[in-house]
């Protein structure tokens, strides 16, 4: 690189008109920053920390998303207090299961993507628009998924046009499916899904919704070794995000402690939990 007269000037990609997508801009200007554009070493799958169970369910005024806190590396617990549920923007949350490093990078990219659109266009993207942007990011990650570095998110948000909470699930090829009422992803999702199915009913209140999500994660941790249960000794509680017409909020630790203690108390002598 020589220091020409244009040195220091914003490169042409910055001044190009048209796109309000941060990913497209980065893809054109600095593709090495995108997880999907990095070449992978040849060879088979290798091991990296994995994040596990995420559960989401709708309630009367919106949607709740909860995730456990464990990341595993084979039989080792790689991290016992990582967070897997993030606010994507003011009205949506995204939870991740799969290869933790790439998943967190994708979430970060997704957050910037939404904020970037908001600033350039001066308006919020529709909920379907956000879900589709996430789908295209997962789709671009297919090459990595085939080498074992898959990421499967769960996306939930409050739809301002319909005034309700909605949930979208994904597969590794970037397929985006709207889920009715509730859904769960990750290694403990079978157990979580079973629990939610039995406990969920239309018109739950916010508190009931939170408690169902925590019950579901408890059941997942009960039967899946890769899902971490609440840790009373260390004070590690599941991450719970509530998305409603006021936006996204994360429940504080003291509230979660109360919910978890209630769930555990309900299971004394009744290990199957609420029903």
């Amino acid at each position, binding site marked *: 690189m020589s220091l020409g007269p244009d040195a220091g*000037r914003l490169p042409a990609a910055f*001044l190009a008109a048209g796109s309000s997508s941060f990913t497209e801009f980065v893809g054109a200007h600095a593709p090495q920053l995108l997880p999907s554009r990095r070449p992978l070493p040849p060879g088979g799958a290798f091991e990296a920390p994995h994040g596990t169970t995420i559960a989401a369910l709708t309630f009367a005024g919106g949607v709740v998303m909860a995730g456990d806190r464990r990341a595993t590396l084979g039989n080792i617990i790689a991290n016992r*207090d990582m967070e897997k549920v993030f606010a994507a*923007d003011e009205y949506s949350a995204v939870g991740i299961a799969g290869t933790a490093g790439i998943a*967190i990078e994708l979430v970060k990219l997704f957050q910037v993507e*939404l904020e970037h659109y908001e*600033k350039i266009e001066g308006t919020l993207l529709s909920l379907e628009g956000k879900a589709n942007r996430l789908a295209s990011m997962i789709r671009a990650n297919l090459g990595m998924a085939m080498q074992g570095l898959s990421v499967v998110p769960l996306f939930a948000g409050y739809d*301002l046009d319909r005034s309700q909470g909605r949930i979208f699930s994904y597969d590794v090829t970037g397929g985006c499916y709207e889920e009715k009422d509730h859904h769960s992803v990750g290694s403990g999702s079978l157990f979580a899904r079973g629990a939610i199915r039995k406990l969920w009913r239309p018109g739950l209140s916010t508190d009931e919704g939170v408690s169902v999500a925590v019950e579901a994660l408890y059941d997942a941790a009960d039967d899946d070794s890769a899902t971490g249960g609440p840790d009373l000794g260390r004070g590690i509680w599941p991450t719970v995000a509530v998305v409603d017409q006021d936006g996204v909020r*994360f429940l504080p630790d003291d509230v979660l402690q109360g919910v978890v203690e209630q769930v555990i108390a309900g299971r004394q002598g009744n290990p199957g939990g609420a029903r």
Partner: protein
Amino acid sequence: MTSMPFYVSPEQLMKDRADYARKGIARGRSVVVLGYDRGIAFVAENPSRALHKVSEIYDRIAFAAVGKYNEFENLRVAGVRYADLRGYSYDRIDVTARGLANAYAQTLGTVFTQESKPYEVEIVVAEVGDSSDSDQIYRLTYDGSVADEHGFVAMGGAGEQIETALKQRWRPGMSLADALSLAVELLGKDPAGGKDRSLGAAQLEVAVLDRERPRRTFRRIGGSLLTALLNSEDPTRDAPEVDDATPGHHDILTGEVPRDATTNPQTQRDAPHGTGAEPGPAPGDGD
């Protein structure tokens, strides 16, 4: 520029370009940027609700411009891209107004000397600090020169007259209501010496960088809140600390329905909860 029959001295060439750019800028209405006790306020005379002269760039950085809309809009988008790319590849706190002002200066300077037509714009990049001493306001002109301004800037057609008046009347630590009233009064003065106009909320575009807010500090001010702030008899002196409750984009404060303070309109959680060391989703995020 393919055939030049006569020799044109570089001085003359640059002067012609500068005159051309200056004329373009002088045609537009003015914009005032001034500090107040809790942040930096931006006031523009702009009846449009969609074509903004003042915009958010990043958490603590905003942009204001006068001149040709298509040119400064292009620069604004470039600034958002610059800031988001920097914040994405480093960290949110590493995005600074100084870096952006330098990038703009290089760009404007190169265009001024090398392209057939200079940008007919004048822009301000401002960053709100933890206290008014650490606020930064950079003014950039069409030829790429940068000035580090203290307290206030006025640009556009009547920029010079407004700045002269601000020098006498602006004080550090003014309340938002006082700062806005002063800016609006000066914007309404006719530079040719004619009758003063009184500008109402509908003709103004007003925004603030509010240093007390976490993370994204940029808020537009409109509706009844702006009317109340501009009315000297109204007790409202400052923007409310909570956003509006109306679901939707929360960069606009109207003061009509205050929002439940427990919700957090931020993209990421602003403080790690729980005890002990927790890595959290974005290390070192926010403050």
